[in-house]
């Protein structure tokens, strides 16, 4: 395992919540530019894994390395490369579209802020609502804004937690297209999803979590979706 070529590396990652062990000594390597999908039952540790890598959860045992640097001591520049798409919107209801993006852009130190904000608003087709309060947005528009929020600082590692859940058609389309662009530009992607078909379609590699460990791993290049789905069912219902 060479540290330099992998963008994300975890070694013996263990996390317990009281009596419950969410992750057991989990080691995973994601090379630069790979799209990884993580599937598994509820409680298998998928979301916990994502939360640790995105530094939402900061106490755990084991190592997480981003571009070879330990996440716990990494500087702002390294941590700035991580983006997170959540199924929650993370938006402030009482700020406008522009101000919400402005807030996140400022906190992430985005260069040439106003231009970038304008750019991303156009990209998610929200130009007409630029100065509207989030409170007054429809659900679909809010979802598109949330995507804009995730991409505004141009991350090179993208973590997605059930990103397609509850998205309307328009937002789904936009997310698909944003992800396509992201992968084409060499970004590294880690997505947690229950939608195994979509996850399979988007991935270079699929990994199955069960009880805090990796129990199966396969690649869409090498095998068929049906074979994977059968194996997955076998794991889940055994």
């Amino acid at each position, binding site marked *: 395992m060479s540290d330099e070529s992998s963008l994300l590396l975890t070694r013996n990652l263990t996390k317990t919540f009281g009596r419950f062990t969410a992750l057991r000594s989990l080691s995973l390597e994601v090379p630069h530019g790979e799209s990884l999908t993580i599937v598994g039952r509820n409680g298998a540790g998928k979301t916990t894994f994502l*939360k640790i890598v*995105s*530094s*939402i*959860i*900061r*106490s755990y045992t084991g190592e997480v390395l981003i571009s070879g640097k330990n996440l716990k001591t990494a500087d*702002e520049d390294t*941590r*700035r490369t*991580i983006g*997170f798409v*959540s199924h*929650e*919107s*993370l*938006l*402030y*209801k*009482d*700020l406008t579209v522009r*101000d919400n993006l402005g*807030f*996140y852009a*400022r*906190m*992430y*130190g985005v260069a040439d802020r106003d231009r970038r904000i304008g750019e991303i608003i156009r990209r998610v087709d929200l130009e007409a609502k630029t100065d509207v*309060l989030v409170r007054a947005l429809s659900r679909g528009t809010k979802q598109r804004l949330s995507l804009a*929020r995730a991409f505004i600082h141009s991350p090179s590692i993208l973590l997605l937690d059930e990103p397609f859940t509850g998205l309307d058609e328009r937002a789904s389309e936009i997310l698909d297209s944003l992800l396509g662009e992201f992968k084409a530009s060499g970004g590294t992607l880690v997505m947690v999803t229950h939608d195994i078909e979509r996850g399979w379609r988007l991935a270079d590699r699929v990994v199955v979590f069960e009880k805090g460990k990796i129990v199966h791993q396969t690649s869409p290049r090498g095998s068929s979706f049906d074979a994977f789905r059968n194996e997955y069912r076998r794991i889940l219902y055994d």
Partner: protein
Amino acid sequence: MWRAITTILWKDLKIELQTKEAFGASFVFSLMVLVIFNFTLDLTTEEALKMGAGFLWIAFAFGGVLALNRSFALERDENCVQGLQLMPVDRGGIYLGKCLANVIFMLITEIILLPLFAVFFNVDITGRPLYLFAVLFLGSVGFSSVGTLFSAIAVHTRMREVILPILLLPITIPILIAAVEATAYAFGADTDPSFWFRLLLVYDVIFVTVSFLTFGYILQE
């Protein structure tokens, strides 16, 4: 870090300008407390001068709790706290930004309430104005320093905002005592305030520092 502080401050001020929730609630509540004091305590002017500083700070404290509650309640919506947790900034900077915003909200309420207090209770508050501003500032900083930290704690508990006053008020007793005594001096009382101002300063320094250092523990999952 500086960027984090100013950005959070900007955000909280903008939200407050939009909703006026913190100011509205704390101002109205503080005013109510003063009015109720009047009805329950029928004071002579002389008594009011002696006890006025006390009423004022009780009103400020109770109003302040409401404003502090809102400080993190607004982050609970849509799980914006997670947005803060994701950011690559020093979490202490987030604390300072929020604390500063809370100090400003408290000061605004206090400045508007003061003339009303002077009118209602017939108290001359112009004794030593410079000292008055100093007390208001130092007192509000002290109250908000621990208050902002505890507001973050309260938002994550089952009792939510209800537990904030229970946690906060005992801890802020030193600063309330000091603020009341120093305010009495600022109104023109003939006492020696040097101890109180020193206490205010020491309290502020200690608790802003400790809250700054421990905020990271509160903001994590």
